[in-house]
């Protein structure tokens, strides 16, 4: 008997009650939110529970919603139960001034770099992470570039010295 979304949510709400909220099923993928202090407990429960068995962390990333005061950053986990072949999406929200979320590295080795990437781009501070430092950007960077307040470079700017790349500088048509 395959695991259905309804069974999962009943099981979760039995355990955590109304601390699991915003339950939706966009495109059939069960999505829910929990308080950020609970993220480890929920992940651990999903991992260990005999019927749920969400033991594969497919993806971990963050989303920035600057308009949501106090809940600017969402950390999104995509989990997969490979036995029953069910996926779920689990979110926690945190504010951007104090973006502390517990690390999932003790449950999933794969969370290590994904959390570093999330820290690198959104500044989510994963408490307890063994090696939380930038991974794709340079170490000296002092901001979190994927946040919405950083726009892409203006394509029409002219003040940049691009001589080495064949644009602008001496001999250019501009």
């Amino acid at each position: 008997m395959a695991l259905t979304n309804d069974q999962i949510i009943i099981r979760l709400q039995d355990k955590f009650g109304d601390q699991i909220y915003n339950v939706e099923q966009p495109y059939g993928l069960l999505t829910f939110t929990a308080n950020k202090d609970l993220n480890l407990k929920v992940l651990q429960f999903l991992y260990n529970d005999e019927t749920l068995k969400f033991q594969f962390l497919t993806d971990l990333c963050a989303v920035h919603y600057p308009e949501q005061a106090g809940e600017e950053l969402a950390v999104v986990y995509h989990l997969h139960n490979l036995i029953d072949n069910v996926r779920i999406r689990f979110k926690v929200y945190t504010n951007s001034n104090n973006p502390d979320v517990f690390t999932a590295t003790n449950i999933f080795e794969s969370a290590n770099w994904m959390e570093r990437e999330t820290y690198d781009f959104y500044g989510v501070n994963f408490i307890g992470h063994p090696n939380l430092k930038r991974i794709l950007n340079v170490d000296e960077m002092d901001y979190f570039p994927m946040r919405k307040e950083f726009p892409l470079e203006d394509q029409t700017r002219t003040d940049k010295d691009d001589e080495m790349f064949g644009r602008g500088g001496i001999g250019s048509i501009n």
Partner: protein
Amino acid sequence: MSLAELHVKLPEGSIEKQTTTLNLGPTHPATHGVFQNILELDGERIVNAEQTVGYIHRAFEKIAEHRPLYQITPLTDRLNYCSSPINNMGWHTTCEKLLGIKIPKRVDYLRVIIMELARISDHLICNSVVGVDTGAFTGFLYVMQYRELIYEIYEEICGSRLTTSIGRIGGFERNFNDIAFRKLEKFLKEYPDVLREFEKLFSRNRIFMDRTQGVGGISGDRALNYGFTGPNLRAAGIDYDVRVHSPYSSYEDFTFEIPVGKTGDCYDRFLVRNQEMWQSLSILEQAYKKVQEFKGTDADVFHADVPEYYLPEKKDVYTKMEALIYHFKIIMGETEIPAGEVYHSVEGGNGELGFYLISDGGRSPYRLHFRRPCFIYYQAYSELTKGSMLSDAIITMSSLNLIAGEMDA
């Protein structure tokens, strides 16, 4: 005084062993891509390894937040560039899932043909490069002409070879021409012999077996915990394949097997990839047969009817009002994307390639995240290589099929 005593003078109070730190990469002929490994060596044995990535990070996720959907396709090319068509199709199917577009069967089958060709070319490169790293260059050169043939097929369909940007949201930019099908037939006819010979060169080759067996192995449990997917996970004995578990593009219409290994070492990874090429060949044959069954006007279908997202043909743009409007709206990126949140994944050349797309109803995605398989499983590299020899680390790296473009996005 003996020579050895002259050569090594350890500082006072030090214990007898000294380790060497070696920077393997960022640009090293043996790393096949831009990534760095800081190895701590005791003689030739690896004590510790730390991987550094990010040398070719291009901020695709940020750029994608400012582009209309169709302009994101070229970004996906540059992820795993050994099999860009799979990335392209993955992106198109993600958009189609978000937009709720129903794709005609013939288009699905044509996509399967393209994706399986791409898978073969990806595995071919990976496996032959493992051969190169163990000292056998012949296999690499020999199979290259069949990768060339695959690239020629891409070229007939979309005009480009490496960064293909093949297809559109809704289907293909044009129908496959006769030359493409002739080349596909040639490939189906000639490639099995080549693959058989390639296998003969390696599979039971004593030197190759000695170099790869028991090297870079991982257990199924550890592989799952490390987020392995694709051939690397299957080599560790877990039969997870996105094509079977969450079929897309009508993969459910095909019969094929998922080859699995046992030890997860370089040799098993090699065998799994080889077996997958046979399975891909079988899928290709089935797909080509299915495509040929479409007759008359059905054989001219190469895209779904979604004028809002599918770029119209140029001759229509010049003669029809609607086509002109849609052409303008699509090119200028003035089409609103319905709000929604979707995760879609495809079986890429080296694992589950996922797209997490959030739209808030604007003209470009609110957030797009790529789940890049090799970024995730490369974390295991230090565990895989600890305690092994330096030369084994090189083979482990190439047999993991690490693509720097995908890792750094």
